[in-house]
Each structure stands twice: as C-alpha cells, then as structure tokens.
C-alpha cells in the first residue's frame, strides 16, 4: 500500500525527474513530507511564479519536461503566468498543484481555487485527480502529453485526501501511452513533400522562415543540411534564434518588428517561403496582406491548427520538423541555382547592416556585443522582456540551439531571472546570463533569495535605463513623448544584491564593460551587473504596428 504522495514522487522519478521547483503550503504538506526523504532535488523559490518559470527554463535548455509544485488557491494562481508563458511558446512542463480535500471541493473552502478551470485555456491538458487509484496513470499521461506532439504545459490538481489515501499501486510500465483522442502526426505526407520539392525547383527566390518548432524538435542539424544542400537563405523568428549559427553565410538573422532590414526585405521579395515550426505571429508578419505577398508558401508544422490559421498556405505539411526535413533531404533529386537571389541578399546585408551609434556613451548594444565576444557562442543567454530582449536578439551571436531562452509569445516581464535558475539545473556546465532591464528584473527580484540560498551561479546583466524602456520608446514615437508612468526611480541593485550576500558591480563607462563581464563570468556564484546605459536608447530598426514589414523606421539607413 502506498499513499498518493508516494505514488506521485515515484511517478516523477520514473519519468526521469531530478529537480523540481516549488513552494509548500497547507494541502501539499503530505507531498512535502514525502519529498523530505526523497532523492528528488527540490528548489524552494520565493514566489510560485518563479517555480513555473524555472521549470520552463529547465525545459527549454534541456529539451526535457520541467516540473513545478505549488499549494492550492494562491499558490496555484501564482503559477498561472508561468503556465501561460509555457503554453504560448509550446514548452513542456508539468505543474503540480495541491487542492482542498474532495469533500470540500466547490465549497469555497480555505485556499480553494478552481485551478483546472482557470488553466483550461492555457494548458495543453489538465487533470483534477479525484481517486488515488488514478494518480499513477495521470502522471504517466501528463508527461506523455507534455513532451509529445506540439509540446505544452499540463497541470495536475491533487486534492489533499488523494495525496494521503493509501492504495495498492504499480506504476504503469508500458513505454507508450495510448489516448484515443490524441495521436500527433510526426511524418509528413509524402505527396506534399514531393510537391514542396517541385516548388523549390520552380522558385527563383526561396527563403526559409524558421521558428521555435525547429528548436523544440531538435531539427537544427537537418535544417542546416537542407539549407546548405539547396543554398536557401534562412531567417528565424525570435524563438528560432540559434537554429542556425548567427555568422552562417545563409543566415539573415531575425525577421519581423525588430528584425534586420535584409530579412524583412527578403521576405517581401521572396517567391517561395518555406515556413517551419512558426505560426505567422503578428510581431513577425506586420500587416498580414503584405507579408510575403509575392510568395507561395510551404508550411511545415506538427500542429495542423497552425497551418492556414493566419495566412493561406499552398503546401501544408503536418509533421515533426526534424522528420520532415530529413525526408525532404533524402528526396532531393534536382538542385536549382539561386545565385542571383543570394547576391541580392548579400547586397542588402552590406547596405543595411545592424548599426548603433559609437560615441562614447554606454549603450546596451555594446554590452551585448561584448558579452557575445567574450562567451564566443558558449553559455546560455536568458532575457527578460522588452528592449533588453530585442537588443539581445539583434546583437548577441547565437551559434547553437537551446542557448537562447526567452518568453516570446506571452512576452512575460520577470521571466528571465527565474528561468535562468531553471537553465542552470538543466545545464550546470554552462555559464548562464540573464539579460535584464531594470523594470523586468524588479518583477521577480525576490528570487535573489533563491539564488543566494542555493548559490545558483546565475549572472544578471541589468541594462538599467530607469525606464520601462520599450513602452517609453512607443510613447516617444507614437504618443508625442508623453512618458506616462514609464519612468522608474533609481535603484542601487548592487546594494540589494549585497543584502542577499550576492556580489555585484555597477558599470557606467563603456571601457569598464569587458572587465565587469569578465569578473561576473569568473565569479563562482551568482553575480549582478548594473549597467547604467544611455537612458533613451531605442530598438531599431522597427516596423510600426500595422505597417508592412518592409516599411521599417530607424536604425541603419538614414
């Protein structure tokens, strides 16, 4: 006989879980009591939101399922932003929540909230377990659903009496879970694949438009081989950065609202767009009618609902990016010469490079370039959301998949710092940097406690402009510089770090940037860098909301 709590912990171990992020509370006492003797490593966060983000960061960096645990009511509700973040970016996490005992369900009991109801639109699936006998299967299914198909978060809600009741139990051994309502398609339709290859021969100006799906299916090697075999240029979304090395001759960098000019021009002039693991998000497409208006579109995605959702597609291929790309590679018979197109792209690259003023002021782009050149593609970069995120996407040279961890779809400020903690546990061998703004960092600054407590060697580079910079930028450009509630008072982040026993350094001069970054990298534990950057620096180039993506403002073409 085993209690539900024991069944849960054993289930997690059977699923290969080593680390979970959580926060205790009343109804999860039986689970925490079981954890006390268990070999699972539990990281006590300072706010449940951080547990969800840490599980998410762990998942993104490792490709495995991240796990977080919270109590009922407020604990569960505090996970919501983290779960929604994971949902929007298709990240596999399992969120475990305590719940009031089954006999009190629906009674407005102390710390009761309907968390399965609340998370229905932001989970891939969720469970309210009412019988201890079902728990083993539920855990098995939850991990299976989270990591297969289009990955995503799954929540398991556990009433207290389900955790304490003892039942006979054996963990379901079978490797495959069968669910009659869930059968993802991994292999692309062969006729559609042939049709796609024919289109490549017909095309003059093909372009690969690659997103997070390529990262999550670990399809970078296949993507590179495919692009190189046919000599097709590649642009990536924010989520796809790292799928192709930044300095690869076929790479055009990021497209979209803050993409490179050459990537956006290439999309606009392309006659064949091969979209892989992307969802034609509004931040990418700008005005939808003008996005790739001259192009036929091949769309490869594991989620059929993404195909044709925003843009009409000529060749839909439902399948896993890795398997479809491998299949396409094996079927290539003819190759076409796209040299004229490549030459045109090279000319754009030369004419419109990414550029920012070099005038002695401390600029965020310089900080990121310096970090990039110091780490040389090693290390894992996490970001917060806003200007810090866009500058990092533009100026950091990502060379490998899963080395860029950011909240894309939901755009969650406060994501980066706790996610970086999760990244460390996924890749303890790597230097982990959170590139932050002073606004975002203060959204989960309490995690300095977690980092100090566990000596998690996360480095934070705060690009401190004392503004909510991205909103301020929009106010400058579109609201007549009326800086409504976007200015923040100065904060001494080094002192705050010191109060937690964490070292830090303030940097005000560009000539100190390299020394400071080196000091952070060489420090064994966590380290906080407070870069006092140019206050009203903007992210350029930029596509104004609702404009076509080739109508960019600012940056490098004055």
């Amino acid at each position: 006989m085993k209690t539900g709590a024991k069944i849960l912990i054993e289930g997690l171990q059977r699923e290969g879980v080593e680390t979970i992020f959580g926060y205790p509370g009343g109804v999860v006492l039986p689970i925490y009591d079981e954890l006390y003797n268990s070999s699972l490593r539990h990281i006590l966060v300072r706010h449940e939101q951080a547990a969800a983000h840490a599980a998410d960061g762990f998942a993104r960096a490792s490709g495995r399922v991240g796990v977080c645990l919270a109590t009922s009511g407020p604990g569960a509700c505090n996970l919501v932003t983290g779960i929604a973040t994971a949902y929007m970016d298709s990240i596999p996490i399992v969120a475990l929540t305590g719940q009031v005992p089954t006999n009190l369900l629906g009674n407005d009991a102390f710390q009761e909230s309907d968390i399965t109801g609340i998370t229905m639109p932001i989970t891939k699936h969720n469970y309210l377990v009412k019988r201890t006998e079902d728990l083993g299967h539920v855990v098995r299914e939850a991990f299976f659903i989270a990591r297969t198909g289009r990955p995503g978060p799954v929540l398991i809600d556990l009433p207290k009496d389900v955790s304490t009741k003892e039942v006979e139990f054996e963990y379901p051994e079978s490797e495959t879970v069968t669910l009659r309502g869930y059968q993802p398609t991994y292999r692309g339709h062969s006729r559609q694949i042939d049709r796609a290859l024919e289109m490549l021969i017909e095309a003059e100006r093909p372009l690969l438009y690659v997103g997070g799906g390529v990262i999550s299916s670990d399809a970078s090697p296949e993507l590179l081989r495919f692009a190189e075999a046919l000599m097709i240029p590649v642009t990536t979304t924010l989520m796809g950065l790292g799928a192709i090395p930044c300095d690869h001759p076929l790479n055009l960098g990021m497209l979209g609202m803050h993409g490179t000019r050459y990537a956006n021009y290439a999309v606009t002039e392309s006659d064949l767009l091969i979209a892989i693991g992307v969802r034609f998000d509004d931040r990418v497409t700008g005005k939808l009618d003008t996005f790739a208006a001259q192009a036929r579109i091949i769309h490869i995605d594991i989620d059929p609902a993404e195909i044709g959702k925003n843009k009409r597609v000529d060749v839909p291929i439902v399948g896993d990016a890795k398997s479809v790309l491998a299949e396409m590679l094996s079927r290539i018979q003819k190759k076409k010469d796209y040299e004229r197109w490549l030459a045109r792209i090279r000319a754009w690259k030369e004419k419109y490079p990414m550029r920012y003023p070099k005038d002695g002021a401390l600029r965020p782009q310089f900080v990121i370039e310096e970090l990039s050149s110091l780490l040389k593609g090693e290390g894992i970069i996490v970001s917060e959301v806003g200007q810090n995120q866009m500058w990092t996407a533009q100026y950091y040279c990502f060379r490998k998949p899963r080395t860029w961890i950011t909240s894309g779809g939901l755009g969650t400020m406060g994501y980066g710092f706790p996610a970086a903690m999760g990244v460390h546990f996924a890749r303890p061998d790597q230097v982990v940097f959170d590139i932050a703004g002073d606004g975002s960092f203060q959204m989960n600054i309490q995690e300095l406690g977690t980092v100090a407590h566990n000596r998690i060697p996360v480095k934070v580079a705060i690009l401190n402009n004392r503004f909510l910079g991205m909103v301020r930028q929009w106010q400058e450009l579109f609201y007549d510089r009326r800086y409504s509630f976007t200015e923040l008072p100065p904060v001494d982040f080094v002192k705050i770090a010191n109060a937690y026993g964490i070292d830090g350094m303030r940097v005000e001069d560009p000539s100190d940037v390299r020394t400071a970054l080196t000091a952070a990298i060489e420090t064994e534990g966590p380290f906080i860098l407070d870069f006092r950057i140019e206050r009203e620096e903007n992210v350029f180039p930029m596509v104004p909301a609702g404009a076509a993506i080739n109508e960019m403002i600012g940056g490098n073409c004055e």
Partner: protein
Amino acid sequence: MKPHTLSVLVENRPGVLSRVTGLFSRRGFNIESLAVGVCEEPGMSRITIVCIGDDAQIEQVMKQLNKLIDVIKVSDLTENDRVERELALIKVNAEPGSSRAEIMQLASIFRAQIIDVGSRSLVLSVAGDTKKIDALEKLLRQYGVKELVRTGTIAILRGSKTVRSSR
C-alpha cells in the same frame, strides 16, 4: 457564412463540455445550438454543435476541437445528406373557446402533441428541423406564448454511413 452542423465525439468525462464551449468563446466562434448526450460507443458522448462561419473559420474550429485531448473525432455534416431534429416544448395561452380549437388544429398540422392541458393554457411538444419549429412558434405567437423551451439540433447521416471513432 452559413450554419455548419458539427458532430463531435468526446470522452465522457467531467469537464469535457466546458473544454469544448470554453474553446468556442475564447477563440471567438459562435455556437448557434448545442446538444449533448451519451452515444452508442461506451465511455463516449456525442456533442452536436451548430455554428456559423465561413469555411476558413469552420476549418479552424474543427482543428482546434481536434487538439483537445478529450475530443476523439470531429465531423462536419453540413455537406452530407443528413436528418436534423430538434424538440420544442411550447406553453401557449388557450382560453376556453375558439382559440383552443385553433391551436389544436395547428398542432395537428405540425404533428405536434398536446402533452398538458390547463384551464387557460396548453403545452405542445413538437419535433422537427429548426425551420419547422420556428414556423409553429410564429403562428402560436398570436395566442400568446407563455414559455418556449428548445433543445439544440441533433443530426445523423442518412443511409448506412456513420460518424464513429475510427479506432
């Protein structure tokens, strides 16, 4: 934009209906009518949904429904030869005298049954497609409809073709 009749086979589990209807509301799809009940396959229920949209919207509805783990199969019956029925219970004013006879005559023309007779009202039960029920309701309005209760539309394919799980 036209009405589509979707037949959705789901796991018979708590919360399934709210997953389905929640999906419609949050993705901005409108439900015209909805009917749910157990079906011939053990452990499953069948939901019949009538919703209005253009082809792209309906395709998106079906794809999103298919993504729900508890949804086993989604079929659009609209282009198929099918029979549709809904049931209505109508309580209509019927003072003793001439109107009562007229209402009973109407009921017989529409093959409605009178299932309750009160001193000043009648309750009619009528089954048929949406148009037929609309027509009867309109005719009864002149006497004063006190209460109208309608089920959602249910539908089934004609002939031996079926909408079942393939597994």
